[in-house]
């Protein structure tokens, strides 16, 4: 049995690394369709990665070792996060080692490294991006924590696999608090993944950038890893969302058949397709917020998550 769980764990991580760029490509494609543009191929992100990996890296003269190792740290933390999140199955050896709060810590580690690397070169844009990223980060984290507490109140654990198991064991009627938490989570997802309305991943205007401003000095394989880490981060956030709010199809403890695993893969892909097009729709319909509206946006997310908690406590479902 142990062997199988490790294979499953390994497979899940490989799958995450492999299809994260596809998810980003799907969102880009949906967005193009919704904006009445002809869309790039869904495999465009892979082509970009291949192009970047085959180039020679250029480093600024002022770059310190921190700048060089950051892409690997980013990629590593996102892979580790993928190992913790139950995207296909809950019986994961890694997941037991860390709960959702540790997961937020992982994301925070990546953020700190990227921000330091952005300031490392000493250009104005890098520190501008880093400064804005830290502002968004410290506002988004509490909101995300509140969302997770919401779920843990329902099922009595902060570990994501236990949450999924708990949900599947007690498929209760829909708790209204979950709706508040879900809306709050989507808002945090948009902010944390540099999407409209907080950041614009497609912009060429260096003065308005947040995430992109931090990557301006990266090239070739370093840039490829950073981009890949961003794809993984978005994929991971989507999977956290699925685990918290729509855990149908995820193979839970004790169900080990090949059919269950196949079903879980199909379920994941289906959910990604729907989530990707929903994200693209949100991005198409909104304009980018003025940057000082971002605190209001994230405060709203926090408030919704807290409301969810209150609703749960007041209604006293269980």
């Amino acid at each position, binding site marked *: 049995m142990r062997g199988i769980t490790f294979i499953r764990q390994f497979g899940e991580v490989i799958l995450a690394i492999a299809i994260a760029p596809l998810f980003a490509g799907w969102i880009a494609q949906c*967005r193009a369709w919704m904006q*009445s543009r002809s869309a790039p191929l869904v495999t465009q992100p892979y082509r970009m990665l291949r192009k970047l990996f085959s180039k020679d890296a250029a480093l600024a003269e002022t770059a310190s070792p921190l700048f060089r190792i950051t892409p690997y740290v980013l990629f590593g933390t996102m892979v580790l996060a993928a190992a913790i999140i139950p995207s296909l199955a809950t019986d994961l050896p890694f997941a037991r080692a860390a709960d959702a709060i540790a997961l937020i810590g992982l994301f925070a580690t990546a953020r700190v490294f990227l921000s330091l690397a952005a300031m490392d070169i000493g250009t104005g844009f890098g520190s501008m991006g880093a400064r804005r990223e830290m502002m968004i980060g410290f506002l988004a984290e509490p909101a995300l924590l509140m969302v997770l507490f919401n779920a843990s109140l329902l099922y009595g654990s902060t570990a994501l696999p236990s949450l999924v198991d708990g949900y599947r064991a007690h498929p209760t009627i829909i708790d209204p608090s979950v709706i508040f938490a879900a809306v709050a989570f989507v808002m945090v997802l948009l902010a944390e993944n540099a999407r409209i309305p907080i950041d614009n991943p*497609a912009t*060429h*205007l260096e*003065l308005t950038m947040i995430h992109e401003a931090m990557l301006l000095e990266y090239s070739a394989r370093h840039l490829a890893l950073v981009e890949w880490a961003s794809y993984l981060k978005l994929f991971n956030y989507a999977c956290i969302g699925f685990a918290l709010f729509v855990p149908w199809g995820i193979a839970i403890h004790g169900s080990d058949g090949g059919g269950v695993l196949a079903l879980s893969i199909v379920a994941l892909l289906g959910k990604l397709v729907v989530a990707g097009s929903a994200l693209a729709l949100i991005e198409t319909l909104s304009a*980018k917020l*003025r940057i000082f509206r971002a605190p209001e946006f994230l405060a709203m997310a926090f408030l919704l998550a807290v409301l969810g908690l209150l609703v749960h406590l007041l209604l006293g479902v269980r």
Partner: protein
Amino acid sequence: MNFASLNSAKLASSGKTLPSNIAATHAILDRAEWQRAIGDLRAIDAVFLSLWGADDFDRDGSFSIYAAFLLAEGALVLQHKITDVIAPSYPSLARAFPAAARMERAVYDLFGIVSVSVGHESDQRGWLRHAGWPEGLYPLRRSFDGAQQYPVQSEPYEFVQVEGNGVHEIAVGPVHAGTIEPGHFRFSVVGEKVLRLEERLGYTHKGTAKLFESLTQTEAHRLAARLSGDSAVAFSWAYCAALEAITATAVPLRASSLRALALEHERIANHLGDLGALGNDAGFALGLTHFSRLKEDLLRVNVAAFGARYLLDYIVPGGVAVDLSKTAHALLEEQYRTLAHEVAGLRAIYDDHGGLQDRFREAGRLTPELAQDLGAMGLIARASGVAHDLRIDHPWAPYDVLATQLITQSDGDVAARVQVRFDDLSESLRLCQTLLNTLATGPIQAEVAVANSDQLGIALIEGWRGPVMIALECGAHNSIRRCHAHDPSWQNWPLLEYAILGNIVPDFPLINKSFNLSYSGQDG
């Protein structure tokens, strides 16, 4: 012409009528008269148009400095002859007309003529030279050989420093992340708040004024069309109008209507492009795709109707290059109908979109007082309640029979500039429809005679940004002695430095786009 409102009696008596497409007067003043006239013009709120120099050393051993103004009665061109050629200087205009400051710096770079100001310090830094040629050489002097090459050496440029706790600078450009023209912006900021912006332009100085002097009168309209690519019609019309005024050429009715049609097409195309880009800069990509599609459709119609996408070389001395065919006539009608319908739909989306309006309103406000004091031009001025439009104030053919509506807004923010563009666009569509309905039959070109030597003429055309001006002095044997082209961006660039004050850094691209000024047009 009678300058009733002007105190300087000398002006009214000595002024001579100047060949132009609008009423214009030319007066030659000595130093004291020049200084007094500047003060008087400020007092009556004359609109400052342009400042330029000329080297007449070969003719009468002097330099000349020219200043052009717009008054209710028409255009006024003042000329001051500078006989001290060792250390040429003239009284500065910058105190009365702040927009002149950069033009004075440019005149120094090109002619070595110094502006002298009494009682306040003037900015003596170079503006256009950028160490592209050695200090002490002045390219527009007749002794300068335009074919000569000089190595570019980097020279320091002192930006104004802002001091204080937590104040730091952000340097942007001249090379930007997008495919746009080069310009340097130096922000002094606290956190995200902009305390000061200083522009440095001149990176696209191409020496077009010198190049004009090597062309013949009948081919230089092609260079005029290329001074600023988005204003090809305005500049080539201005050049042709100046030449036609000097040679007293009567342009056929049909040709002038077709020219106006082309000018309005240029206005519509630029507004469509800007409205899309403004949506995109606020993160609303849907606007960009739809407005870009509409603009592209219009450019293709331009090819079918006028033979060129951006209407380069459509306007030629004496008329236009291509006649409008019967099929093109129907095509245009159809195009105006579709455009009016689709733009109305998109306008409703822009107006009702909370996120977009939140970005547009209050951003980059240029108050009407400031716009008036600093001499804002064209579209930017009209968005800040300064109601100037040549098509209405000083209409030339065929605008004299068109009854153009004046479009203004008073808020002066990005939202106001968006509204002015929408309104302008609708009005242009109406004008196009009228022009098409009343299009005269007849020839599309008249013969242009060779101008007499040493004749000066000017022309003013309300391009989509505002009034563009060409001052043309003809030489002997079909040559050009001096041609000065002026883009309204000269006046509006400094206003951007004011509009950004108190705003936050990430709003700058949006505010800059709402101005959408020409780099090439001001760099020359």
